[in-house]
């Protein structure tokens, strides 16, 4: 069971980095990779997909999945992912955090992405991740890194830092998906936005919220 989850996470990393490359976002900084992973979970519902993780620990500095990071390390070891600018920074609370940038090693990753493309379900996920990456690439790099502060689920003040944000594990309260779906109302009656357009509207919404906060 654990291996299965680990494999799904590894596949998600490869797909996210592939999508990021397509959207011109690589090399992808570690916090941006985790942010995309989080958004791929919290926005999965909008694309009628199941998130691979419906909860995470709320951290001051934004989304970070320890297990995903370990899988990423292993993908580096396997040569599938290349890492650059490896450094360690000390966070406010005195904790050490990895700071690095990642990209797919095209030679080894190609085999995986080709195999994934053979499956309908994986193609759907890849399409979703591509659109997500395209949408998020419209944000400036610093906006992208800070965007969890404007995300309604992550920034929900009712869940404090150090507590669990649960949007799809034991409860089903996903403000991000709800807010994203509401953008449909902005369209004239009879016109329905595509799911891709909704993701772009959501990215624009993040942009506005981040700039309104300044």
């Amino acid at each position, binding site marked *: 069971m654990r291996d299965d989850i680990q494999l799904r996470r590894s596949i998600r990393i490869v797909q996210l980095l592939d999508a990021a490359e397509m959207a011109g976002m690589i090399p992808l900084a570690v916090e941006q990779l985790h942010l995309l992973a989080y958004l791929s979970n919290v926005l999965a519902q909008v694309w009628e997909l199941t998130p691979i993780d419906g909860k995470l620990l709320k951290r001051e500095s934004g989304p970070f999945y320890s297990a995903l990071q370990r899988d990423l390390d292993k993908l580096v070891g396997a040569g599938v992912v290349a890492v650059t600018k490896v450094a360690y920074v000390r966070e406010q609370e005195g904790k050490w955090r990895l700071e690095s940038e990642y990209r797919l090693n095209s030679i080894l990753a190609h085999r995986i992405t080709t195999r994934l493309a053979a499956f309908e379900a994986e193609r759907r996920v890849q399409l979703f991740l591509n659109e997500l990456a395209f949408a998020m690439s419209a944000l400036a790099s610093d906006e992208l890194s800070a965007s969890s502060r404007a995300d309604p689920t992550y920034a929900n003040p009712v869940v404090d830092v*150090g507590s669990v944000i649960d949007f799809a594990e034991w409860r089903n309260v996903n403000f991000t998906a709800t807010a994203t779906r509401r953008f449909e109302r902005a369209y004239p009656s009879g016109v329905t936005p595509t799911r891709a357009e909704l993701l772009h509207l959501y990215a624009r919404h993040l942009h506005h919220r981040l700039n309104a906060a300044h």
Partner: protein
Amino acid sequence: MVNYPIIEHLDIERYGLFGTAPEHVLKVIVDRGITLVLGGNGLGKTTIVSMLYRLLAGPTDVTALQYRLDLGTARLDSSRITPDARALFARRVADGARTATATMTVRFADNNLVVQRNLGDLRLVALRLNSDELDISEDVFQREIVRLVGVPTFGDWILILRYLTFFMEDRRPLIWDATAQRQVLRVLFLPQETSAKWLTDERDILELDTRMRNLRAVLSREERAVAVGQAKTQSAAKVLEELKSLAEQQQLDREKRERLAAEGLSGEAAREDARLRTLRAEDDREERYRQVERIKLESIAAAFPTPSETARYLLAQLMAEGSCLVCGNVVPDVAADLELRAKQGKCVVCGSDVQIGSTRVADPVVVTTALRDLEAAEETLAEARLAQTECENNYREVIQQITQLNAAIAKRSTRIDWLVAQLPPDEQSLHKQRSELSLLRTRVEELKVELAAKKNLFRGFIDGVNQTIVESAAAIKKSFDGFAQGFLLDQCKLVWSPKKSQVGQEAGTVEFPAFELEMSGTDFLSPVRRTGPEQVSESQREFIDLSFRMALMTVSGFKSHASLVIDTPESSLDAVFAPRAAQVLTRFAHRGRNRVIVTSNLVEGALIPGLVFGDKPSSRQATVVDLFELAAPTAAVKALGTEYKAIRNKLLTRKTIS
């Protein structure tokens, strides 16, 4: 915004405990800052605190507070206390305090209220607001208090007194009592209409829940009655036996389901807590791991004439964990070899000598410590995962049992209905009973639907309430830090953590506003939630709660002004914490118009000098009410007066504070 009481004067007249002369008056002027009421056993310290309380509360209390420690979903209506409780002060003196009075001047924002009560029976003797004499009636008193303080009900005022202003002998903890906390947060941070609506809606749900359960109990009884009736009609012993046993079993299963529902609720809280611990343990483990990795990476960085970051990354992890990221094998010997090569200034890959002018070889102690931390973090993580699995299994088991019970109850109902439907058509009374039974069932189902709908609305309402209260959370946490950090050496902070709770016994839970405490400790790698008072030391316990109270009053009070009355705080303090406690109380006492009234036994140590002199050892900063001088002497004071005096002189004339 709440107007907390600012206690300014207390006059006690003709009360035997404080002087026997006919017109004797004990006058206590409560100035800004600390007022220390000092006395030995039996001199009346707690009596003074009780008088202050009774002058503000009158002969009234929230019933639930008198008989239970946790508030739960008890009604918060205020009611008159018993004659026995009203005779509290009368019992302590020979004349029954028939002519004794206590008078308090208390300020609420810009209004001055003077309350005088007879100490024999607590009846009001005088009531004056600013310069106006008011009618002498408890109704007027309560109406004015509610208006001056700015709370919806007098019961809410009692809550403020018991959970914020007065820290009495019963030590009602607020930080660890989720039910009391949510009510206090309601009173302090919601507009009055919202606060009142909360109470009304919650009460409606509880009443409906009770009605529904009562009706269900009636239904069970009726099922049994019909069973007996059926059996008599048919004279069939077998049917009698089956229906009787079915009805009994049905009742037992319903009771069991209620018990399991309560178990499920605590199981749900336990698994949520376990999940949080696992996620935090993963986070800790990640941080410890990166620390080890960083140290190792630094030590080999310069060994690469042409840095290859991927190679360095791989080697650092290999050296950090002893496992190979490429093939997945655990190879501690290889890791040790690589480390040795790095230390000897050799290339870690081929072993050749390399120029490593700037190689920083990691300090072995630092490495060992980091590795030990990592190992501990991994152990904690493994334990947390195990505990989480256990909690999840327990919870799943309870839910499974409830599901099975529901199925069994439904199946049994069908069987009972079928048996009842076999009644002979000419048995009128049984027909009647049967149709009544069916009506009763329908009504129970209707009530269940109504209850679920009401609860859903209430849940949505409380979600909105949480959003309102959380707006003040940052200010409360900051204020708490200011008080608690001065007292505790551990890292300690408040965390906003809404708590699930049942309102009634049916139709799911509601998530109410609450704060929890997070604190580091010797056995924990990073701060952990402390969900009960037993999870912190006795010395810490009371001052954590006091810090929380002070933070709430600071954030919610009119211009942050408030009074705090603490009965004998020294009882839980050890010598090391005593001066720190004095500092925290002094810090609160010297904000704005705040008043802190502290009673204390004559104890050696740093608490009394700390309270009296603050951080200015040369002059007194506090008002001292010396009951050794002012109260009627007890036998101990008469016999040991000289010794008491010597200690008092030592403590109250102290020039330096250790």
